[in-house]
């Protein structure tokens, strides 16, 4: 009986995972898709528990309960602003599981493993431990337990690549000559070391791209596990995970007009630090305004586009900004939100934050959808966004962000920028936008400024 039930469970799981992902391509079907994926996981678990190799459920039950409790607590209490960290952490968990399973498989069956299975196990362990430590490092940088600045030293890239090559070489040797059992721990340790070394030179703000890439590696380690265990549901789930991570990182690289190599080895975001340290911020005159003055202008606007960025997430200002949008709407203005693909701290992050603050998703528009509309807009209100609005990307060939597609806020009749000071954004370049005649700077923390604007606007409207 189980000869039929187990394979069919896995087949169903594989199919349902795909159906799940298809669901999430549309708002209407997204939650149904999620349910399909959940059902798929249920099938996979039931199919696995029917394996006759499993003879003792004690540890399974304990581990399952512990895992469920931790998972549920994390799911309920993690704030939306901490999503990037949580995602990094869960890559670490997934990869750890893959690495440990590979290790156990190796030691349990060690002398009689065929060359192909051995290669799959080696790859699984390599990718597993590399992704585990890499994701932990990414978590540390995102959660600001570690310094966000890229830590670089001369020849770093060569050292890193050598470590990886030695680990891969050891893997090949082990597959060719399985008697060299001492190589196995060497591979595991080198992989873990490489994971750490890979992330050290990458700046905190590049972590989103990096976690997408780690997503892809975690998927590939599941694929390797699938090959090692000859389990097709694992291969399917791993391949889906792998392609999702890869596509997201490609989308982000493209939206920043940067290459993979540049993200991984470019130590981008250094300029930022040095500029800040050197105090090299130029003193040029800008027009700045108080929240009262800004509120008076906003009161007369018929159309406003709000451009949220990384600073909004840092300030956790999403709820206040939504209130501001509500007041403006009540005042008769058409209010929309414009989202750049890399605004914020992870792909799609701004959308989630705004959705959390109860902004309807059809009021949130992607860069391509809204860029043409800035020219017909009274006020573009930039909140904690910088690089994604920098016109230098269009005009200045020497700028590090040249060629990056940006939101054309400078086409609006008036531009208001909310930020704390004149500091540069992640790319470390000055923003010409701030010195234009039509631009008004409102200095302060995004949340405080938004509160002030709501307050003053309500006063103005009432008056």
């Amino acid at each position, binding site marked *: 009986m189980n000869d039929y039930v187990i394979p069919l469970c896995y087949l169903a799981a594989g199919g349902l995972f795909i159906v799940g992902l298809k669901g999430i391509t549309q708002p209407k079907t997204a939650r149904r898709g999620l349910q399909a994926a959940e059902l798929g996981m249920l099938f996979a678990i039931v199919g696995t528990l029917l394996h006759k190799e499993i003879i003792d459920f004690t540890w399974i039950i*304990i581990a399952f309960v512990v895992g469920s409790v931790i998972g549920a607590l994390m799911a309920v209490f993690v704030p939306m602003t901490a999503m990037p960290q949580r995602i990094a952490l869960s890559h670490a968990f997934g990869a750890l599981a893959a690495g440990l399973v590979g290790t156990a498989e190796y030691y349990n069956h060690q002398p009689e493993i065929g060359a192909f299975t051995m290669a799959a196990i080696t790859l699984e362990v390599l990718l597993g431990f590399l992704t585990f430590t890499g994701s932990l490092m990414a978590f540390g940088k995102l959660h600001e337990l570690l310094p966000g600045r890229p830590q670089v030293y001369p020849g770093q890239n060569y050292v890193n690549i050598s470590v990886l090559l030695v680990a891969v070489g050891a893997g090949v040797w082990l597959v060719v000559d399985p008697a060299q059992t001492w190589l196995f721990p060497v591979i595991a340790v080198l992989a873990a070391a490489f994971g750490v070394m890979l992330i050290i030179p990458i700046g905190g703000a590049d972590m989103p791209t990096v976690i997408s890439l780690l997503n892809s590696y975690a998927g590939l380690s599941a694929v390797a596990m699938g090959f090692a265990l000859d389990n097709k549901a694992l291969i399917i789930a791993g391949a889906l995970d792998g*392609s999702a991570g890869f596509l997201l990182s490609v989308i982000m690289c493209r939206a920043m007009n940067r290459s993979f190599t540049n993200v991984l080895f470019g130590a981008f975001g250094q300029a930022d630090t040095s500029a800040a340290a050197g105090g090299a911020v130029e003193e040029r005159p800008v027009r700045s305004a108080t929240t009262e003055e800004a509120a008076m202008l906003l009161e007369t606007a018929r159309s406003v586009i709000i451009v949220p960025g990384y600073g909004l997430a840092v300030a956790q200002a999403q709820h206040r900004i939504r209130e501001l949008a509500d007041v403006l709407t009540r005042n008769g203005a058409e209010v929309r939100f414009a989202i750049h693909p890399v605004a914020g701290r992870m792909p799609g992050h701004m959308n989630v934050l705004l959705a959390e603050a109860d902004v309807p998703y059809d009021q*949130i528009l992607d860069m391509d959808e809204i860029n043409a509309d800035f020219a017909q807009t009274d006020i573009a209100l930039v909140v904690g966004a910088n690089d994604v609005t920098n016109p230098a990307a269009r005009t200045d060939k020497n700028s590090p962000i040249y060629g990056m597609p940006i939101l054309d806020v400078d086409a609006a009749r008036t531009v208001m920028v909310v930020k704390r000071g004149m500091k540069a954004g992640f790319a470390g370049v000055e923003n010409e936008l701030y010195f234009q005649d039509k631009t008004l700077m409102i200095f302060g923390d995004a949340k405080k400024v938004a509160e002030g604007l709501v307050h003053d606007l309500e006063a103005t409207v009432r008056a």
Partner: protein
Amino acid sequence: MSTAIETGLYVFLLATFVGFEVIRRVPPLFHTPLMSLTNAIAGISLVGSLVIAGSDHGVTSTVLGAIAVTASTINVVGGFLITDRMLKMFKPREARKPATAAKVAANGAGTSAVVASEGASR
């Protein structure tokens, strides 16, 4: 070539094609939930972990297996729950809570068009 390898390669090739085709259609709106959903799906490493935690290969193996099961379960349970939490937050314009409409209505003239359209959709 053993059938296991061959089959594995087919499944990997085809699943990757499916993955790329489907995921390229996911709108930026859902990129964060997408990541957290694939995280949950990657909890499929449970499949390997459970067998190791439950089979009889000595204590070390069982402990490794149990840790792996814990880690995978965190991903599965946490991933699905948090994806659900996120997806629930996404609402179209019409579905906003009535309170807003009431507040809006109380605000009179300038916004009557908005109120009307919100009212009609309910």
